[in-house]
């Protein structure tokens, strides 16, 4: 049991650092999106709670691309300036699945603890 607890702690630390990555990977899971679209979606879906500045978003996108989780490609649509669309790679999909699961476990753990404290205080 102790081992499991330690394991959970270690991976939690990892995903906290990487939660921004998780957000981006989740957003391009369904279809390729460009940077501005990704930043707008984060803002909208978090109802303004989360937002990325350009100075953080693009370096992060490039990092994910460099790791081979995303693949960026310039797409030119008629009548528009070309944009760079990012799609999830097969590797990125595996990473996303694992991060989603980790996130799920983390949220449940946090809920259990925070819920537990509330219950104790209520008692």
């Amino acid at each position: 049991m102790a081992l499991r607890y330690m394991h959970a702690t270690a991976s939690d630390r990892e995903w906290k650092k990487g939660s921004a990555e998780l957000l981006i990977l989740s957003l391009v899971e369904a279809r390729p999106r460009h940077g501005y679209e990704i930043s707008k979606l984060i803002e909208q879906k978090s109802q303004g709670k989360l937002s990325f500045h350009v100075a953080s978003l693009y370096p992060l996108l490039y990092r994910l691309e460099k790791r081979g989780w995303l693949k960026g490609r310039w797409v030119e649509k008629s009548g528009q300036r070309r944009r760079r669309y990012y799609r999830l790679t097969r590797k990125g999909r595996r990473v996303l699945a694992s991060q989603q699961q980790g996130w799920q476990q983390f949220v449940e753990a946090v809920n259990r603890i925070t819920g537990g404290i509330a219950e104790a205080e209520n008692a």
Partner: protein
Amino acid sequence: MPEWKEEILRRLESLKLPAARETEIAEEISQHLEDRYRELLAMGKAPAEAQRLAFAEINEGDLLARNLRALEKAATRDDAPLGGGNRELWGGLAQDVRYGLRMLAKSPGFTAVAILTLALGIGANTSIFSLIDGILMRSLPVRDAQSLVVLKWSAHKNPEAHNANIYGDCGNETFGGPSGSSSCSFPEPFFRDISEQSGIFSSVAAFANEGPLNISGNGMASVLTAEAISGQCFSTLGVRPALGRLIVSADDSTSAPPVVVLNYGYWKSRFGASPSVVGRSIRLNNVPFTIIGVAEPRFDSLSPGHIRDVWVPLSVLPQLHPTPEQKTRADDIYTWWLVIVGRLRPGVTIGQAQAAASVIFRNEMLHGVKALSKPEDNPQVAALPAQAGLAGNASGFSRELYVLMMAVGIVLLIACANVAGLLLSRATARQKEIAVRLTLGAGRKRVVRQLLTESVMLSVIGGVVGSLFAVWGSHAIIGLMAAGSDEPLGFSPGIDGRVLMFTFAASVLTGVIFGAAPALRSLRVDLTPALKEGAGGSAAEGGTGRWFGFFSVGNGLVIAQVALAVVALVGAGLLVRTLQNVKSVDPGFDTRNVLTFGLDPTLIGYKTAQADELYRNLQERLAAMQQVDSVSYSRVPLLGRDYSMSDFSMPGTVKGESADAGTLEVGADFFSTMHMRLLAGRGFDAAALAQAEVVRERAETQRAVQKPGGSGAAVNPKAAARSRAPDKAAGQANEAALPVVINQRFVEKYYAKSNPLGQHFGQREANAKTGASADPGYVIVGVVSDAKYQDLQSDIDPTVYMPSSGGDVTFEVRSAMSPGTLTALVRRVVSQMDSNLPVIAMHTETQLIEQLVSDQNMIAQVSGFFGVLALALACIGLYGLLAYEVSRRTREIGVRMALGARQVDVLRLVVGRGILLAVAGAAVGIGIALGVTRYLASLLYGVHPDDPVTMVGVAVLLVLVALAACYIPARRATQVDPIVALRYE
């Protein structure tokens, strides 16, 4: 609209990113800011406010640069695309290769010419290397060859009373001469002493060529080659049987029944690979042998090129050759005939083995029953690694193969220069592409890598195609080499792993060599003019802009190609002239319409008188045939490579001093059959032949009764070693002198001032000290014209023709028609006389001469081929440069013609320039050739390495061919239409 890009670029400046990457990031982020700006406007913000808010995204100090720095640093180290992860390098290379393939496919003409050129260069090198690998670097077909050594003795002077049988297993073996003597032949007693040195060697073996043996009991009687080996030979070498068992120590005993092991190839060809051969009986020289096994396939010979059909134990030799010498040889310290190999014990060094063997050898040489050497002669033994020591026939080809390797090296250099020239021309066409890539931020290293990748790809494809050429080429050369002998060459070079490694290395190196100059040159491109429309600056020309700037790289490459081609052609020319000179030598007899064939009735037990009777009868029967003009026989054929010489005591010389002369025993009518002119006296009649028979029989009888190992057995062994003439030394003192016929050269040297007819020479008194008995010598009964004997190149020696008796002989049959038509007839007649008697080596005299000059023929043909190839490649290079210049200068030619230049002026301009280049190249080439052809001197005959005729001939040929190469582009230049050419102005 705000200038987003400039703002972003300013913030990225400190990162020093490649321009292309920087542009890409700026584009993407400016797109983001613009989207944000439009959104803010749509939300009702004033433009200034919207712009401020949008910029706020990147205004947090240098956050963007900081966040990008760590990321982009790694990427700029190698310009590989993002997304490659740890595979950046390989990802980048794969991209280069893909891009390179696209570029090569875009210009199929260039690609085809470059690949073909490289394939010829690399293929030529691969074929010669495969021969060097298969012949000179062949690994011994034995287990753990590193611990196997072969012994070789040396001494400042030839050991006394020493009779050596040399079979060429060790390559260079020398006797006498300024550098002393050395050889791998040892007497059998020494072999036994060495075998007892169990501290040094874990096992020791000996072997010796047993020459041809007559085989019956397996179809028609025929002759095979045999090697006699000691009982431990196969186990020492680590050879395994493919079938049955191999010879072991118990078989090598006089009390053991005779056994034989078959060569795998011989078993397959002569016994149909039948597994039931084991236990079968065959007769070798009429002695019944039991086949006990077949050796493993890879073991066909121990020394390169000496393929043996069978192996027999040493102990059976007295049965195979029931001569007095064979019976006594096992204990005879004077007869040296065995090659000794030993396997070192683990931990024993070659130096220790050498020291131990030398001690035994010196002891026997200086303090044996009879001392054969003096201490100052310093007799010693070297232990050589068997791989290097057992050179066999390989050493005979080494000079030729290294000369050819130099020739193909030159061809490859020309091919490199040629393709480098093509690439330089192409670099001009690609100047704009490279300028664009550099402008977009491609690193210069990256561009060089791309161009080198393309050139290495070209050469690797060239290498693959070249390997196919090499398979064909090496087979063709092997065919030419094998033409020199009736026996199989004994080498089977092929394209194995080592050769492929060589080819791959040569290809990559070639790619780097010819790709380096154009690739580096591409970096010196000036971006601004290069990007302009219609820019025509020439990289090949070094950017001088002048008409064919003489000291340009392109011109330099052409001059280098022509110079190298001249060197190759001069070498080839000298070798071709050597072949012509050798072939045009007058041999002194009529070589046309003569059929020769060998007979050795002694192999099936004929005694001297029986053999002589057989020869007489056969001569009569053949001569009686309508198709035959005349018939004779001799011990060996003229110009058949075999040669024997003796030293005779000559009247008038200092006592004890001897005179050398070639000797040949011949039958009746020999001189008339060979169309040699009898200048004085007479030839040999029946009485002379009968006298020879008596002499030979007496000598044989006398030898048979002499004690083994005694002084009698060592009678003048020096003479015995050098002469195949009947051993008259053993004759009776009261015997009459043997009639002989001498050649003109003999007369000139020894009887210049007297009539030679009736003169006596070669007499010897008995000498108890040396064991020599009295010899009545020879009396001259005739003089014949000079004839070449050993080979065509050597000067004709003074020669003594003696009447032949017994032994093996070669018949010469002269016919009015083509001698090839007589072969079946001759075989039938021989078979009718004795069905067990095989006909050996049937050739026309012309074929013998072809075999004799086969080495010269091979190297002349092959080097000639490479010379022509070098010339063709150099001229293609010249043509390519001129054609390129003409097409590049079309506009200028148009202007010249519009201003009044005539066609002939343009023709002169282009051809003149080409010829100038060719002449410059030829001059440089002849200069180099003068320096290097002396290394060919040992291969030349009748032509000096500096031969002016060859040099001038090659230069003229080259300029003529160059003229043709210049003419086509020059002609195209004259056809330039000024109006079309100037349309773009």
